[in-house]
């Protein structure tokens, strides 16, 4: 079993009891979508903040795997290997 860690931006941390990251375990590599399903399973409000009800990542939510923004890879199907950092950041938008 490998451990995976998803780092959350400060503004979302109150939704998970103040934790700055969530963890999950899996056998081998997982996709970002699978990882989000797992780590947000107990946090439905957090899940809605990241993805809409069709499962699509919200437009101004950016997820980085090992430094690569997943839209430039395979989106939610992007694979995450054990030990890679998954970072959620809201994009710079609005005024």
């Amino acid at each position: 079993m490998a451990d995976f860690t998803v780092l959350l931006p400060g503004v979302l941390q109150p939704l998970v009891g103040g934790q700055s990251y969530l963890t999950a375990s899996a056998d081998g590599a997982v996709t970002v979508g699978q990882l989000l399903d797992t780590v947000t399973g107990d946090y439905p409000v957090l899940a809605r903040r990241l993805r809409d009800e069709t499962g699509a990542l919200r437009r101004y939510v950016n997820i980085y795997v090992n430094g690569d923004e997943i839209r430039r890879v395979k989106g939610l199907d992007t694979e995450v290997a054990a030990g890679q950092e998954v970072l959620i950041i809201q994009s710079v938008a609005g005024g």
Partner: protein
Amino acid sequence: MGTMATAESYVIAIGTKKGLWLANSPDRKEWSLSGPHFLMSEIPSIGIDTRNGNTRIMVGVRSEHWGPTVAHSDDLGATWTEPEQGAIKFPNGTDAALERIWQIYPDADSRPGVVWAGCEPISVWKSTDGGEHFELNRGLWDHPHRSEWGAGYGGAAAHSIVVDPSGEKVHIAMSTGGVYRSLDGGASWEPRNKGISAYFMPDPNPEFGQCVHKIAADAAVENRLYAQNHHGVYRTDDGGENWDSIADGLPADFGFVMLTHPRREGTAWVIPLKADGERIPPDSKLSVHRTDDAGGTWKELHTGLPDHEYNAVLRDAASVDTAEPTGVYFGTRGGAVYASADEGETFTEVASHLPDVLCVRAAVVVGIPAGTEEKADAPVLG
């Protein structure tokens, strides 16, 4: 709270582009302001439910980053609750996602717990548990016209919901699509736009496709409604079968607001803007106009309002209360909010320099909102 908790006061909920403010007054003259709640999220819709002697403030919240949701407060804004699974979610199979909640409409006293919502994408929803969980109205969602409804400048949404006392007759308005009516409590819908101009379309008198900005029901005359259209102010006396212009006497027939009196027949308010292409008050002078004869004549109401104003007033940025005489409230895209305790004869400024005002709702409540200063711990949509 002590004795204050049982005293009546007036509350204005002010939804803006960057959060919610609550204003409170014991007499509708002096107002104190609390907020922002949900800082940096827009609040395009508010419903204040005062049925059964309780007050529940429901807000449609939308973060550019984190999406839309519905939250409610049963303690005048001291705390907010967001249902864990979300109050409004498109069901599986619709392949749609909620964009924005445009309307939250508590139903009649005789139907406690029933709350309607109008949303983007164009959809109507109904809750029977006080706004904690809404069901999609399938009759409208599956309507054969849906693919032909369009988006107004602000998005494609059902923004007006009017339910008659029986609960069977429901009128909604959408931009763009126009007025639709149900005679079976929302199970099926038919367009009802005869007489309303769609001058911007090749056929200016289509069955549907109008850009109706707001509708409101007369307080006392059954089947009478008023409409502020994208150019054109109208009245129907037959439940939408025919609409007739009541724009004569107004300085312009463009605008977004349509308010009706809570009890008195024939009284309605509009806030005209010059034109589609010039969305400023006529002569850049901010005025409310009231009719007391169902649109036969209009009276300009300007006392207390600025002589120079270049901001628009949006469709839901205006409200009445249920007091006697009726209070009239509205806010501008320039962040000013005005209140009248005498049906619009005189206004006082409640707030200024807020973000763009998107929604205003007013009510007579028991108690006062928590806090009158900016609160460091006010909720944000994290």
